[in-house]
């Protein structure tokens, strides 16, 4: 399955039977990329398969080479998906290029002035009608559960985004949040919940988004004292409504939080 996946990347024009197979593998690709070969950073204990692969990789050069190859394919795919779509930009303009990028990764968007959303379905197919809307910038973007990363953000640069949803994206990290300063004049709603790589250092970068009205920071696993962080975020962005579910605020925090502050966060 992974060998086929590697070959597909080399084929420039994808034929119909291969497309469906490719889209089948797309969800698997997100997992492949998300599972890092370099060590166990995830909270869950490694499965039997990964432990046995590690054991074999320590003893046999060919197993180690196979695992390296697998992770390199994943990284290559990530890179290729997030390239700057310069060719499309030259042919169709920045708005269509951004739209094509979003649909290619499996997300959805809405043009300025339109009310319908253009989305890629679960198999990766999408409607090419968006080509009709030339020179219409994109206003709302939903890229939840895709492999968008910092480099891919450059594809959305010139759009006056008002809403950006990147819930559950495994490649969204602190540098991505710092890169959001490009949308500081327009962004009003941001959803970064369930992103496993965001830490407090990245949340400090959100101070640039002065028009932000809705922020969703639920279930960020790498935040150590969520109650304190939520309070600091509220202080930093006073006119923004912050949604933060999925945290166990009843436990005593590392930051030495007092009981009154805890109640405030829950209320």
């Amino acid at each position, binding site marked *: 399955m992974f060998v086929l996946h590697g070959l597909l990347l080399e084929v420039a024009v994808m034929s119909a039977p291969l497309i469906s197979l490719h889209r089948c593998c797309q969800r698997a690709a997100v997992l492949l990329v998300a599972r*890092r*070969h*370099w*060590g*166990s*950073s995830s909270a869950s204990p490694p499965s039997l398969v990964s432990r046995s692969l*590690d054991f074999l*990789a*320590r003893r046999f050069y060919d197993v*180690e080479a196979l695992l390296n190859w697998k992770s390199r394919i994943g*990284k290559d795919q990530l890179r290729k998906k997030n390239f700057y779509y310069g060719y499309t930009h030259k042919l169709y303009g920045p708005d269509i290029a951004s739209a094509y990028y979003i649909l290619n990764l499996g997300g959805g968007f809405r043009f300025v002035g339109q009310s319908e959303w253009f989305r890629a379905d679960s198999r990766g197919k999408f409607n090419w009608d968006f080509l009709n809307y030339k020179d219409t910038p994109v206003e709302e973007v939903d890229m939840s559960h895709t492999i968008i990363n*910092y480099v891919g953000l450059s594809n959305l640069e010139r759009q006056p985004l008002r809403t950006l949803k990147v819930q559950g994206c495994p490649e969204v990290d*602190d*540098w991505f*949040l*710092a*890169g959001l*300063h490009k949308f*500081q004049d327009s962004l009003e709603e941001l959803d970064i919940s369930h992103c496993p790589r965001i*830490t*407090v*250092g*990245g*949340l*400090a*970068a959100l*101070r*640039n988004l*002065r028009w932000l009205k809705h922020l969703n920071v639920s279930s960020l696993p790498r935040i150590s*004292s969520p109650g*304190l*962080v939520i309070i*600091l*975020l509220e*202080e*930093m962005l006073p006119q923004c409504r912050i949604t933060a579910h999925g945290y166990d605020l009843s436990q005593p925090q590392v*930051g*030495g939080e007092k009981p009154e502050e805890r109640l405030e966060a829950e209320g």
Partner: protein
Amino acid sequence: MCAWRRLHRNVRTLRGCFTHGSLNCTAVTQWQPDRCGGLTFCQKLSTGGALRNDFLNELKAQMAAMKKKAADGLPSSNWMPFEINPNLPPETADIVIVGGGVMGWSIAYWLKQKEKFSKKMRVLVVERDPTYSQASTVLSAGGIRQQFSLLENIHLSLESADFMRNINEHLSVVNEDPVDLQFNQSGYLFLASEEVAHIMEQNYNTQRCAGAKVSLFSPQQVKEKFPWINTEGVALASYGLENEGWFDPWSLLNAFRRKAMSMGVIQCFGEVADFRHVKQVLMTKNGEQIDMKTIKSVKVQMLNSLEYQPVECALVVNAAGAFSGKLAKMVGIGLGPKDSLAGFSVPVEPRKRYVYVVHCPDGPGLDSPFLIDYSGVYFRREGLGGNYICGVSPEEAEEPDTSNLEVDHQFFEDKVWPKLANRVPAFEKLKVTSAWAGFYDYNTFDQNGIIGIHPLINNMYFATGFSGHGLQQSPAVGRAVAELILDGEFKTLDLSGLSFRRILTQEPMLEQNIV
């Protein structure tokens, strides 16, 4: 007490089981009433069983020792008749990097990284302090910024930020945890007064052209964005939007070290005591005599010991930080007559800088950037608990003594606190919780790094003199030095402006910055 007795009983019974298997010995334990009224085990005072126990153990130990001696005698063992200190460096190495700070390890990593196919290059990193207690790397405030006035500095910082963004692609080791730099993306905020506002504008244009994401703010905008700042006297402010902030220097150092050692770099804890070199005398057109030296071996002395190992090497890299000037003197740089080429010493010396950790409950929150005032005072947030790190660069005339790393707390009261409280009124009520001092590898010539080969020594490369911004430029400088060594020229960034030439021609490349 009961549990202890039970444990004791279990141990005795176990030992009884073992001895039963080998020797026929009678049960040596029996219940005896003790002083407290309970029952304890006591051993009978007969020596028969005990001696037999000891004999058996001794026999076992002797068998094991004989087995070990036999195994050592076989050809595949490491046994030597005389003891060798395992901490000694190898007798020969291709490249010796003097200095195990972030710069030295960055160079070591890039050397190994660039040498893809012939992994036979032996790189040795010599560091004299295994605890890194006085190293500038770990005592640094850990900030990274692109707000410089020299193009080279801006590019170095940008490339280093790129490196840190993809640090796991570069420095991850198989089966080890990923690198976590704890990077705070908070940006730097520089405040300028009327006199220097035009310099700041010029710098802003240079930075923008070079690709740094910086923006200029008027005092009103600063007040809007950061209401806790007192904007009195501020004419212009420059704010970094991206790729600026601070991180944990120890994590970066360890990441470089771990990756370099996994690629085969050898680490040695010892002090470089001497260099052995050969001299080649050349005559210039004017009849002046110039001595070209080639270093043949480095004498590495073990810590707290007279033992030393001369390491024969092809190249030496001087990444010794604050002590690079002293190291260069060992080779004879700067010891010639004053007006000749040999009279130019490496203008790097240690300068002590204090960093104070203060706690202020009402201070700026999560959005506080690394603030640098035009008076030179700076502060940044540390953690989430209302702690801040602050300090100021002292005047030239009042440089503290560099023989130790003692902190002068009066300095905080006199120089730091008044200016800090003036700029941020919330800091009028604060408490100093901790302080430390560290050395800058201060370049007395123009406060910018010296990268490149020395004209009088054939094989000594320098990467020092960064005067406080070595940490933030270390990944890019490491790559540049590796390119210089392996390819002979700079490939990605052209840093020829930072070479020794400017020192010999006495043309300083000064930063037109306010700090």
